[in-house]
């Protein structure tokens, strides 16, 4: 957890943050009354809080957001997420309805309101942070909205307070559209047309349009009342995104308050700690990846990369996203840019030099940070993709082979792929089927890893040379490779030295796991 290791101002000194210094708009209220449980956070808080509250409230909200992010990583569906999150929310960020008549209503809502705004400040500095924050806050909002399914009256009051304008579809038009309307929305009402509909410009409900969950007619979307959530959530996101952009522009002025900036910096730092980072240094020195030996090294690749490699060898080509995923992986295992270009050049054996140079080379260089804007070059290109990224990205289309095969293949094809790679142990395959059925793709991958390296793992465990930390769950294809390589080269001196170094310098690992837990 985050400790307060910066200089605290004198205890109890009120951090009455000057409204002019904050991006917070002119003070409208000293103490706001919160009429509704849900909040669009349109108005910034204006009353005073102590630094302790400031920090503590932010940290607990961060804790909640991180749990939400874990849910997406584990591919939990909406129901599972709701079940998992309900006790966590109750503990860290309770928010009761008016009907509960709790004496804490105003205090809870105030805390919710303030913590949202503090994190907004902390996470508006970069585009990445803003997008991630907006995504998680949207999830949180949607979750709370759904919690009100049993409390529709209060929710309607909240929605009415938002001043949306939508047109109700009248009976005549509803009769005219009839079955089509129901088919469009997957409506299953048996007792006639009890469900109401409203119509809005299709631009207002991109989510419903994208998933074909509304009927479209001449540019208007016909939305069942129960899909109101989609509209409300979209509006929530849109307003939050706008507000975050504005906050970003105001940030320099907030930085002037030197009591807040260390807290904010600390918060955003723990937010950036990636759920599965991969450290490109510390690769064993006996590993000399070149364009010529990738075929040999491929025996250490996780399925996602060996599938790309095999596809590349078979077709002498890979589509864009596959190339990007594979290039970054190769970069991560220490293949130099020149060797990488050479590798692709030889792999696309049916292609002319000219075409290769023109259409492909630039992208490889870009991935390495050799070309592109300043930010790209400073950051040395993109980072190799983590399992989380591969598991949460859109599914590949026809002809594409990127992503995580545990997720993108149907089970039968996946099993054939594993068999082709020499994995046919019944227990393992059964386990993989089960994992994949529960959408625990990385668990399946770890299962396969443990099977393939069972002898070596037993060996290092028995000898006590590797601890639990060196064998924890793999969350990154490059870590998979590195661990596989090291396990299969246990005799090499430099692998031994590397293990020693890791043991003596456990700093990074601790920070990482803190990052996971917050």
């Amino acid at each position, binding site marked *: 957890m985050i400790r307060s290791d910066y200089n605290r101002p004198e205890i109890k000194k009120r951090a009455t943050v000057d409204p002019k210094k904050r991006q917070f708009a002119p003070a409208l209220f000293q103490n706001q009354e919160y009429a509704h449980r849900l909040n669009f956070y349109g108005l910034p808080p204006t009353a005073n809080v102590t630094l302790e509250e400031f920090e503590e409230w932010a940290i607990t909200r961060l804790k909640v957001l991180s749990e939400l992010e874990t849910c997406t990583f584990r591919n939990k569906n909406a129901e599972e997420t709701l079940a998992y999150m309900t006790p966590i929310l109750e503990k860290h960020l309770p928010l009761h309805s008016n009907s509960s008549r709790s004496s804490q209503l105003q205090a809870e809502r105030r805390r919710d309101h303030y913590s949202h705004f503090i994190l907004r400040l902390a996470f508006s500095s970069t585009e990445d942070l803003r997008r991630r924050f907006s995504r998680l806050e949207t999830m949180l909002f949607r979750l709370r909205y759904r919690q009100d399914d049993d409390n529709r009256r209060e929710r309607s009051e909240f929605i009415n307070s938002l001043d949306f304008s939508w047109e109700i579809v009248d009976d005549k038009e509803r009769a005219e559209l009839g*079955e*089509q309307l*129901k*088919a*469009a929305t*997957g409506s299953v009402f048996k007792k006639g047309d009890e469900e109401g509909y409203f119509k809005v410009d*299709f*631009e207002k409900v*991109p*989510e419903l*349009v*994208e*998933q*074909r969950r509304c*009927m*479209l*007619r*001449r*540019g*208007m979307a016909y939305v069942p009342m129960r899909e109101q959530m989609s509209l409300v959530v979209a509006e929530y996101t849109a307003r939050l995104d706008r507000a975050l952009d504005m906050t970003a522009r105001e940030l320099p002025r907030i930085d002037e308050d030197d009591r807040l900036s260390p807290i904010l910096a600390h918060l955003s730092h723990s937010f950036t700690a990636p759920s599965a980072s991969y450290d490109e240094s510390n690769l064993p020195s006996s590993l000399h990846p070149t364009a010529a030996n990738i075929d040999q090294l491929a025996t250490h690749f996780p399925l996602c990369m060996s599938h790309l490699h095999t596809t590349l060898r078979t077709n002498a080509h890979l589509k864009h996203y596959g190339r990007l995923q594979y290039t970054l992986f190769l970069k991560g295992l220490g293949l130099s840019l020149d060797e990488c270009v050479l590798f692709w050049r030889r792999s696309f054996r049916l292609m002319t030099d*000219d075409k290769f140079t*023109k259409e492909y080379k630039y992208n490889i260089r870009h991935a390495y940070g050799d070309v592109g804007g300043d930010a790209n070059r400073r950051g040395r290109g993109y980072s190799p993709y983590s399992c989380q990224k591969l598991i949460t990205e859109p*599914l*590949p*289309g*026809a*002809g*594409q*082979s990127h*992503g995580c*095969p545990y997720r*993108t*293949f*149907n089970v*039968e*094809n996946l099993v054939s*792929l594993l068999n082709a790679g020499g994995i046919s142990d019944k227990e393992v395959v059964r386990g993989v089927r089960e994992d994949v059925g529960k959408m625990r793709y990385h668990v399946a991958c770890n299962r396969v890893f443990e099977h393939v390296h069972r002898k070596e793992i037993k060996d290092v465990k028995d000898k006590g040379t590797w601890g639990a930390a060196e064998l924890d769950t793999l969350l990154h294809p490059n870590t998979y490779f590195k661990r596989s390589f090291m396990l299969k080269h246990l005799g090499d001196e430099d692998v031994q030295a590397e293990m020693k170094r890791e043991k003596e310098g456990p700093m990074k690992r601790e920070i990482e796991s803190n990052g996971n837990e917050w």
Partner: protein
Amino acid sequence: MLSSLPIDNGINEISIHEAKATDPEVMRAFYQRLFPFRYLCHWLSHHPTPTKDFGFREFAFTLPNDAYLRYQSFPSADLLKKQCVQLVPSRFEIGPVYSSNPRDRKTLRKSTMFKPVSKELVFDIDMTDYDPIRTCCSGAKICSKCWQFITMAVKVVDVALKDDFGFKHVLWVYSGRRGAHAWVCDRRARELDDHRRRAIAGYLELLKGGDKSGKKVNARRPLHPHLDRSLRVLRDHFQADVLINQDPWETDEKAADLLQLIPDKPLADALRQKWDSAPGRSSSNKWADIDSLASSGVSKNLDTKALLEAKQDIVLEYTYPRLDAEVSKKLNHLLKSPFCVHPGTGRVCVPIDVRALEDFDPFAVPTVLDLLAEIDQWHKDHPEGETEAQKKMPDWEKTTLKPYVEYFRGFVAGLLKEEKIVKREREEDAMEF
């Protein structure tokens, strides 16, 4: 002889049979004499005289040495033409309208002052995405059989864009080899952000999953009206263009793909047996076998509804448009301009009149060399000098490019007419305040 070419460029020594479409001098003559810059400018200006919509629009050139020149912009059609004649690009692409002149982007004080603000909503349908299901050709090749896939796709997408999204000005363009592009030019479409473009692409996308993902269509029931309508459009094509012309399940290996999509195991087993014992059955027969065996009662607990739905999904998998959706999702994606010449085939990227979609024959589209020869022929046919009217006649009118340019001109006129109305309404709205 290409006597119609200007004398000073030296190409008049080359026989037309030796000239290649990509020869810079051929391309120069094409830009000089045939490319309809005037209407292109009207189209992009949304006005008869050049506007910011044209002037701040990005053009990107692919030069004969394959250099790629981005962020070009032009105040007028003439200057665009001049640049084309000078640089003889093998093709050029059209990007978005920016908030300021693309040529000034580096001198702007803040990078935020240079951002894309509008562009037509575009779609790209390419035959490569059909390789897993077409049997007649592969790769860059097409024939009239597989061109039907493009016809089907255009039909389905066009009606959805118009009836569902309410767009009126959809320009379809032959991509010059094996596909088609759509440019949705309504103001409402041009102003869509990436998020909304993605939503529309998602609405139109149906096939999910890579090559190894198994069943690619899993449509919800009842079918969404868009899919229901698409299925009605595609059903006849499935019979003629897929079952008969492509015969997609002719081999045992391919037939296994079909069996994999049958939800009832006893039925699938019975089908496999039947086909094993009577090899060489055509896809049409195999498709009919599904129903005949199903009604013969080989499966005790056959779910007829599930079977019907699976069959619908199969029809969709083999006929539903396969869009290159990435092209549609980004406001700042560039797309090859209509009327460019495809460097591989030499054919001009002509507009396709959707009212006569079935009549469109990609092999009848003129190549740049055909057209230049037609100009020559026209002059041979009119040896004794031209009338005044004929002197003013643009060269494209003397060639088979004429109907395509005229169609484009009509399309642009329709767009401009509507822009005028919308603009007046907007101004009136503004007056009220």
